[in-house]
């Protein structure tokens, strides 16, 4: 019995002695240090991203005068509006078309740049990145002047070839074309630089082996380049899809959603309804409608990426 007491006492003392040591261990762990180092960023994200996101969800559940909780009432109202479904359709056309062409042009240009000798490559990379580094609101203003209804520089140039004048921003089809074109011009350099980085990481031996096997240029792209770049293509496409869906400045500056609402996308229509129409809850609901669409796209793309990562 006495032995037991002594042992118990030792056990208690040992536990007491271990406590400060374990706290030190916890603080000394790499993961804890990493957590504390990232804490400022986590707090910043919570303040600037999480809070507005939660607040906009809260706003979307209020009535127009923001005095009554209506649950999903705003969404149910939107589902009955033809204009809303037109905006959904246009946003999808805008984002999917723009991302496809940005990726295609980025892929092609990345190959061209990749084949330039290393000495002169840097200045080409710099020049091709210019559209992406200019603030889009500013560069879109320049495009607006090029498309200007009455004094379009494009129409002036086309007139020498007996073409036009084209109603760039006043005709439904041309207006859609114009906003997508400017978005492609702005976003393609991002794809180009990402794909260029991916191309540089493809081992030359693979191309050499393919050449020995008698592969032509298309087969090299299809069987070597594309499989090696699949993950980067998926990630850039997802990232760009999110940014393009949420685009505001290009459409706002070029057409403000017109003519006849034919170029409105989620963000511009949300602004129209929420700020200009003083219906902030409905505007918040329009903005939030993007979330499930993008979430579904993100789940599919990221699942595919992680599956391939595991296979590797």
């Amino acid at each position: 019995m006495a032995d037991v007491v002594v042992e118990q006492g030792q056990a208690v003392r040992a536990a007491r002695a271990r406590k400060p040591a374990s706290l030190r261990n916890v603080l000394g762990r790499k993961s804890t240090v990493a957590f504390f180092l990232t804490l400022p960023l986590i707090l910043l994200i919570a303040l600037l991203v999480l809070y507005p996101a939660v607040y906009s969800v809260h706003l979307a559940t209020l009535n127009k005068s923001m005095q009554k909780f209506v649950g999903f009432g705003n969404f149910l109202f939107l589902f009955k509006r033809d204009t809303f479904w037109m905006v959904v359709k246009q946003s999808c056309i805008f984002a999917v078309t723009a991302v496809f062409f940005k990726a295609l042009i980025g892929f092609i240009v990345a190959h061209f740049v990749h084949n330039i000798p290393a000495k002169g490559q840097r200045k080409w990379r710099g020049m091709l990145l210019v559209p992406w580094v200019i603030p889009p609101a500013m560069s879109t203003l320049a495009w607006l002047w090029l498309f200007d209804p009455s004094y379009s520089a494009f129409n002036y140039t086309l007139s020498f070839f007996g073409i036009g004048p084209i109603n760039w921003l006043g005709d439904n089809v041309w207006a859609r074309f114009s906003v997508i074109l400017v978005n492609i011009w702005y976003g393609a350099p991002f794809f180009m630089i990402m794909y260029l980085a991916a191309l540089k990481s493809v081992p030359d031996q693979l191309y050499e082996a393919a050449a020995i096997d008698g592969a032509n240029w298309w087969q090299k792209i299809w069987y070597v380049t594309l499989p090696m770049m699949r993950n980067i293509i998926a990630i850039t496409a997802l990232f760009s899809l999110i940014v393009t869906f949420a685009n505001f400045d290009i459409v706002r500056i070029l057409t403000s959603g017109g003519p006849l609402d034919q170029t409105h996308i989620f963000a511009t229509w949300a602004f129209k309804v929420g700020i200009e129409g003083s219906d902030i809850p409905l505007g918040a609901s329009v903005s939030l409608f993007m979330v499930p669409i993008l979430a579904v796209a993100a789940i599919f793309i990221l699942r595919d990426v992680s599956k391939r990562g595991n296979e590797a």
Partner: protein
Amino acid sequence: MSRKTLTRRQFVAATAMSSAALITAPYVRGAYAAGKLSIGFWDHWVPNANDASTAMVKAWGEKEKVEVSIDYITSNNNKIQLTVAAEAQAKSGHDILQMPTWWPHAYAENLEPVNDVMEPLIKQNGEVNGTVKYLGQAGGKWLAVPATPGSQIKGPCSRIDLMKKHAGIDVQEMYPVGAPAKADNWTLETFLKAAEACHKGGVPFGIGLGETTDSVDTAGAIFQSFGAELVNAKGDVTVKTDAVRQALEYYKKLIAFLPPDAPSWDDASNNKWLISGRGAMILNPPSAWAVARRDAPQIAEQCWTHGMPSGPKGRFAPYLPYFWGLWSFSKNKEAAKSLLTYLSQPSSIEKFVAASGGYDLPAYANMTTLKTWAEEGPPKGTLYHYPNPNNHQTLSIAASPAPPKIAQQIYFQATLTKMALRYAQGEKMEATLAWAEGECEGFMRS
């Protein structure tokens, strides 16, 4: 080492002096004894017009011992509307904020009623027009004080030479300086014939068909001239009426004579149209003429601002008043009301009008014949009829008389111009009306 002791007498004297100082301190008028006040003014288009506002507010602050801070907020890209929305949400910001047209009603719950400011001002300066009451009052309460800076009429600004040459109309004779208008024949039919003649002459009227305010305001005035209302004052949808059909038929004929790119015009397009010399008329406040005076004087001296043509139900001119709203969360309401009264005195109004070169319009009946409008030029007297000196036309805003919160939706969704454009582009009349009816029903949410 000597030590000074405090006598009983010294102690009593010191205590009495300290108490007296503490009690009287609040009544001593220091430089800013009446507290602080912050104002958000609309950032004026006209160069140096802001200086007049600053000088007036500064003079008032010095006299009333109030420390005043002023911010000038642009209306470009709706910055001023965003500021109103943000301050209403945060319940914090300026004490007084200038807000355009529909915003007093949109944020009525957050605004301090200003009947005690408006009633004496109306007695002093004369009655305000119906649109000011429609936009500035709710349930007998004044929500805000009509502001002179920024308030405007978007009537025709015609080229004297081109209208004479192509349409055979002498706009100076129709709207003479210093005399009432002789515009009985200035009807929508005459307007349409003039539009056709100028179109044939290669100088079409510059009327936008976009979704920004200039396009919507013109459509609003033409619809009202036919008595066409999409939603009536009671809030009933009245789209499928003969008046709306007539207005659409008229607009379809007019659109045929407008520039083909008019559907993509914004509020700057019509100004550029006039200043570049490509058109015989635009519907705009005198800002286009003011810029032409600086950049294209040969065009400015041919410009004449005048009244709208009349339709079957009257002569309506697009009018957009600005307001000064006092937030209910302001911490210095009395000082704010005093400043609003000061800024609405005839002497202040005269300074605003002079500083803006006649652009700014006071809301009060007794203030429409100031000398600035008679004297501005060239040509001298070009702005005489701009402030509607003879009550020749009804000042109105598009989408009225619908309840303001519904009308705001019709206005900013540009339902009127969209209807006109849809019909003109070949949609069937009944399909256009059905579309507009659906839209208006959607605007009824509360």
